[in-house]
């Protein structure tokens, strides 16, 4: 069992970091504004996975004292990262919505989504 946990250890953290890197890569290199916002949202997903993974406890149960579960306090997974991720997901959605509305307005001005044709976004 130890060995498998080790595999999961690498797999979960690895895929969270990989998701972040994929998202960042998309956000930094892609030309389309929508792709950039998409990259940012994938980056967010990666961070959320990372945070939940930190709170996980091997063989843990969800942090809910449902009937019959009241005395399992010692094996409950950490609820705090979950609460933080909840907040972070909602905030991330707010940022994405604002970003997309900016994209729509940029399109209205420039009739293109390519950042190399929008002068100030070249940097």
């Amino acid at each position, binding site marked *: 069992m130890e060995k498998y946990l080790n595999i999961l250890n690498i797999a979960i953290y690895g895929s969270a970091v990989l998701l972040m890197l994929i998202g960042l890569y998309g956000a930094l290199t892609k030309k389309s504004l929508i792709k950039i916002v998409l990259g940012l949202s994938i980056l*967010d997903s990666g961070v959320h996975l990372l*945070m939940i993974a930190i709170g996980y406890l091997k063989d843990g149960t969800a942090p809910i004292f449902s009937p019959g579960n009241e005395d399992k306090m010692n094996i409950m997974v950490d609820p705090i990262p979950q609460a933080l991720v909840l907040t972070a997901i909602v*905030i991330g959605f707010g940022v994405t919505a604002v970003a997309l509305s900016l994209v729509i*307005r940029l399109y209205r001005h420039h009739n293109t989504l390519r950042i190399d044709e929008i002068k*100030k*976004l070249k940097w």
Partner: protein
Amino acid sequence: MVGSPVLFVAIPLLAAFIIPLTGMMWKNSVRVIPGLVLAFMFFLSISLMGYVNEHGTIVEVLAGWKPPIGINLVFSPFTGFLTTLMTFLGFIVWLYSYKFKRNVDFEPSMKYFMLLMLLVTGSVGIVLTGDIFNMFVFIEIVSISGYGLTSFYTRRDSAEAAFKFLFMGAIASTFLLIAIMIIYSQLGTLNIADIAEKMPMMDHKLKVLSLVFFILAIGVEAEIFPLNGWAPDVYTEAPGPIGAAFAGIVVKAAIYASVRLVYTMYDFSGAFDLFIIIGLITFIMAETTALRQDRLKRMLAYSSIGQMGLVMIAFGIGTKEGVYAALFLMFNHAIIKSLLFFSGSYLVFNKKNKYIKHVNGMGKYLPITSVLFTIGAFAIIGLPPFAGFWSKLAILTAAADNKMVVLIAVILIISILEAVYYLRVVNRIYFYDKKEKTEPKKPSLNALVAMISLGVIVLVIGFYPDLISGILDRAAADLLDKGNYIKDVLTLNK
């Protein structure tokens, strides 16, 4: 006690939720209520400052849970000083822009004032909170209202500036989350005082890496050198008063956050050298770039970034004199840069690109505004009878006490550059002839009152620096007394 720190957040949020309702009945309420709220916040902070001076730091517990379980707000001489400064500036910005967009549709003005109020609230929240994740939430509040305010003008390229800001801000917020999670995974707490107490338990490598992530994240709002790409565009494209709000309020809050981390949370001294290096690079890069600008607001933006570099240097010196100088600089910069943004936007009003050459000969047409701009320019360079002189003197003294000769030399040389580009503008105002036919816009009464009150503060502090030095002294002592902060929060002698 007259009030409590939680009202700094609760009242503006209550007002923000009420405004859409009252706006349906009485349209003017959307601009009046934020002003009342900001004025209330200012008076609250003054009255709490009085209390704090007599009875010591106030630690406010939220939801009835003592730290480290609950979130707490800390109103100490240091945070109180910053809160007072920010709420005052928030009120002045509101006063200046009271008539702003009066004649256009109702909806944009509602959004403008609401976002402005929440921008100030978020910044005050960053300063008051004693919890790193709560700080993240407030940083997001500040950022989103910042995006909204930057893209306020629909006719200009403001959406581009806002998108750039959003791009940096979104990446920064993920870095901030990573840093918070590293700390949480090691220490199991999110409370700043608790973290500070447990910090020696943490692995050294993780400590350094989490600090790096923190600095990368907060550096975006604090306009640290490689991360400040958004700042000049945002200052240029946002409405004039918002430039002042960014320079005076948001950046101050971000600097506070980084200072709180390095001074209170982390316990290794290498961070101070990091501050000096970052500050020096930011200072030199920004001031030399400012010299080459041909747009007024862009020049002011780079100058603002440069001043923030200077503040970082002063904090990096690490002694009490250094902190004193840094706080004095922050105070002066907030007041003077707002004055410059306010008067500067009237000098180039109605001009499309707002080039520096548009100020030519404005001395005759807008005498009061021009005089105020000149006062601001002289003050920020550090000419003797104005407020800026004392802060520059303080930082040079602090550096001299620590025998940092190179630092003194660099600051003096760069200050000359600063003088060159500001005096160039002043020269144009008074000794050039106006070329364009367009009539300059006369400032409205409320804007004039706002600018004159700032100008008076600059003059009064210039002649009587002792008026403020007591407050700054206490604030500096408070920041350096890390043990006291931890004790205040964790033992809670309310």
